[in-house]
């Protein structure tokens, strides 16, 4: 097997020529993004290893930026002729005199190692991967006789990227990613429910020994489904909502994170565009995004524009202090880069994205938070959510419980929470001291581009929120 780091073979002189072609009609900035991705997949269902897959993706995109206009061309034929054609396509948005001279490339210095992998998955043989999947599958299946169907799968990939730009930077990054997931279907009488669990991140084989075993993933998927079998209809209407630590981070991601992405604010479509420095939420709320957390799914050593990322505080004590920036928005807004320019793959233009987003820990004891609610909802797991630029958002509870007289009681069926972000930020009345992160399986979609992310939060109490149940 070819060693990783060897898949993109482009000489510095060729890169220089491509950038010159990209700037041949003027333009302020040109960039080459080349990518090689090797993906592998194992799927088990109906007690057999049903299929395996291997996918190679190789391609390159050339971007030209002229003021606020972006031209982009891409190809998966890495011959110089085809790359040059992509560069000229991207150049077509400019219509001036060619820019001369691209400076000599300086290598981007990477700090720390967000992928401290000991046993990389791309060097792990298929039998070992199959063994992991089987362990999760069997642990799930034997949890209960009520478990009628199990599916388990392992997806891993390694992505090698090369980013070169006309500012003279060259960056390489080799990013591992793995995800082991298990889904269970439980039946009792006519009721049928689906449970889910998973784990992974930018980790190696050792993670599934030392951090989260496949057996635990399988068992939790089963427990999830079994709990739902006993679930009652969720209530409908306005009531206090307590967010369980970890998974509830999706609320932060949807309700707040997206609208702090710089593009929506530069375009003034986000409700936050005129609120930088202003207080929008309760004193006890601080929100950050940190792409540098080792092993996390949303982490990276450089973003997809070659910028070294940093932990970025978005909201401090209820005040908006920063947006998540990519190069284009940072330039147009006159703000510093934060390293949040990400793209799904070489076919896409980078845009500002979240990485690992979370509400910082607070001071309340989680049990006090629950005790303070006489009638409400304890939201534990979510299927996901969506936000509009106007700040209206929803997110779907896939498992949760009722809170009655200060105690967590019966599990509830699927329900939707809906609200407006600034309103919710103001209604956060308690923040627990128990910050944790959700499953390392999340993917965020924006403008059709999917990127891996992680969300987190401590136990949080929202004084009132609309719950969409059936009662």
């Amino acid at each position, binding site marked *: 097997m070819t060693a990783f780091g060897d898949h993109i073979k482009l000489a510095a002189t060729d890169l220089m020529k491509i950038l010159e072609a990209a700037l041949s009609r003027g333009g302020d900035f040109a960039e080459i993004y080349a990518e090689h991705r090797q993906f592998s997949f194992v799927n088990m269902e109906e007690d*057999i*290893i*049903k*299929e*395996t*897959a*291997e*996918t*190679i*993706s*190789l391609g390159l*995109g050339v971007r030209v930026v002229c003021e*606020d*206009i*972006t*031209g*982009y*061309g*891409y190809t*998966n*034929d890495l011959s110089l002729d085809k790359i040059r054609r992509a560069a000229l396509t991207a150049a*077509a*948005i400019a219509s001036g005199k060619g820019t001369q001279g691209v400076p000599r490339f300086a290598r981007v210095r990477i700090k720390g190692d967000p992928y401290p992998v000991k046993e990389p998955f791309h060097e792990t043989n298929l*039998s070992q991967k*199959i063994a992991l999947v089987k362990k999760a599958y069997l642990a799930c299946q034997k949890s209960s006789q009520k478990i009628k*169907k199990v599916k388990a799968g392992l997806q891993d990939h390694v992505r090698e990227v090369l980013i070169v730009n006309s500012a003279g930077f060259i960056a390489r990054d080799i990013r591992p990613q793995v995800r082991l997931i298990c889904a269970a*279907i439980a*039946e009792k009488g006519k*009721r*049928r*429910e*689906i449970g889910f669990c998973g784990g992974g991140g930018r980790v190696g084989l050792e993670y599934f020994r030392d951090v989260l075993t496949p057996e635990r993933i399988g068992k939790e998927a089963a427990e999830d489904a079994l709990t739902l079998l006993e679930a009652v209809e969720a209530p*409908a*209407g*306005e009531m206090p909502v307590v967010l369980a630590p970890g998974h509830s981070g999706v609320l932060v991601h949807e309700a707040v994170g997206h609208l702090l992405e710089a593009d929506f604010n530069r*375009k003034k*479509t986000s409700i936050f565009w005129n609120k930088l420095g202003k207080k929008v939420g309760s004193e006890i709320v601080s929100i950050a995004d940190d792409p540098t957390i080792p092993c996390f799914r949303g982490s990276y050593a450089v973003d997809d524009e070659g910028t070294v990322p940093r932990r970025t505080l978005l909201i401090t004590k209820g005040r908006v202090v920063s947006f998540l920036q990519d190069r284009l928005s940072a330039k147009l807004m006159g703000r510093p880069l934060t390293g949040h320019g990400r793209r799904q793959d070489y*076919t896409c*233009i980078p845009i500002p994205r979240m990485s690992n987003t979370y509400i910082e820990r607070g001071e309340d004891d989680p049990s006090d938070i629950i005790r303070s609610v006489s009638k409400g909802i304890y939201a534990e797991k979510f299927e*996901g*959510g969506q936000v*509009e*630029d*106007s*700040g*209206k*958002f*929803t*997110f*779907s509870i896939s498992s949760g419980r009722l809170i009655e007289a200060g105690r967590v009681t019966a599990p509830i069926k*699927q*329900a939707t929470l*809906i*609200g407006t972000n*600034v309103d919710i930020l103001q209604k956060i009345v308690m923040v627990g001291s128990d910050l944790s992160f959700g499953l390392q399986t999340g993917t965020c979609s924006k403008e059709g581009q999917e990127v891996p992310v992680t969300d987190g939060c401590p136990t949080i109490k929202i004084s009132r929120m*609309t*719950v*969409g*149940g*059936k009662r």
Partner: protein
Amino acid sequence: MTKKAREKELEKLAERFVTFARKSGADEVEITISDDREFSLDVRLGKIESLVEAGSRALALKVIKGKKTAFAASSDFSQETLKRLIKNAIARAELANEDVCAGLPLAFSENTNGAALDLFDPEIREIEPDKKIALALETERIALEDKRITNSHGASLVTNEILTVLANSRGFVGSYEQTFCSLSLGLQAGKTDNKAEDYWFSTERFFEKLEPPESVARKAVERTVRLLNPRKIKTQAVPVIFEPQMTAWLLGFLSACVSGMAVYQKATFLAGRLGTRIGNKKMTVIDNGLIPGRLGTRPFDTEGVACRKTTVLDKGILRHYLCNTYAGRKLKLPSTGNADGAGVGPNNFYLVPGSLSPQEIIASTERGLILTRTIGHGLNPATGDISRGAFGLWVEKGEVAYPVAEVTVSGNLENILRNIEAVGNDPDFRTAVCGPTIKVAELVVAGE
């Protein structure tokens, strides 16, 4: 290279790799090649924001050895990479388990080139970028003339040309070219802290058929301003009218619930329900992959099986699941020509329209909600439960009274299908899964 020459070249390439895989030890092999050209343009506030133009290819393969399956795919077309992937796949197949249902279909489509299906607009390639830019700019300009519109998400114009080639070891070779184009516009109305937003789009296979800029702009404006100054409503159970786009969303969920893959996996509440009533008599739902010119039309599915017309719901009775070869074998049913990659997907999947106009349906409603858009997730195929954030218009005495926001709608797909009170005469074919306006007797709308 001419269209025909490109098709021939890629068919030959696919056949060569079928032969190579057979010689390398595969019992059966299927090779798919796609060759796409994309043009994508975003304009905003009167200027180009981004322009993307590109071509890309991908090859995907399935090998079966001893009833064991392995998949592979690559966008790197070097002989060395492709041959290595094929050999790896054959080796990997050995590590999978035997599956009696694995294997290629036995019968294939006679239409191997998409003839007579009106899938391809040869003009699209010839359209000058300047014409596309002018169309997109014009669309947004017309909308921005309306002073109630305070910001724009921009207008987009996208065209795609896709060549699909399929060859397998049972001797099937087929290829077809298709085109898609769309013109869309997203808008905001109102001030920063009280904004409403919505959009409109037109999608067609033929460029000339796209809605003109005036029409896209007018509808986007109308849909956005009608949501201004929404009210909250009390939690209640009321009749809910689904606009055609919302019916399409509901049918999308139904299509997932009648997927043969979900059925044999027991991941859908409709498993074991074939031949039983799941909706009332107003509900006839059809999947038809052969309607000329429609967005979900194709001569054969991703396994080479002929697309056809399948009655899924006949006056409320569940008649057919959508199957690929694998799900079909699992369920002892024939493939319905709905293979989509490794899974099952709808072709043109639609609710047969009724006779009432949407105005008549609204007029028949004393109090209720017109559902105009939903956001979020909240669809559970195992139970049929639905719970989504919603935007809509409140109806009082048969007329639209005011917009509603920050509500959720909850219900169950089977209950909804059994309680459809009216089906409109206004099918909307801008999506492959589609339907007309419908009215559901009662759903819980949660508000204050």
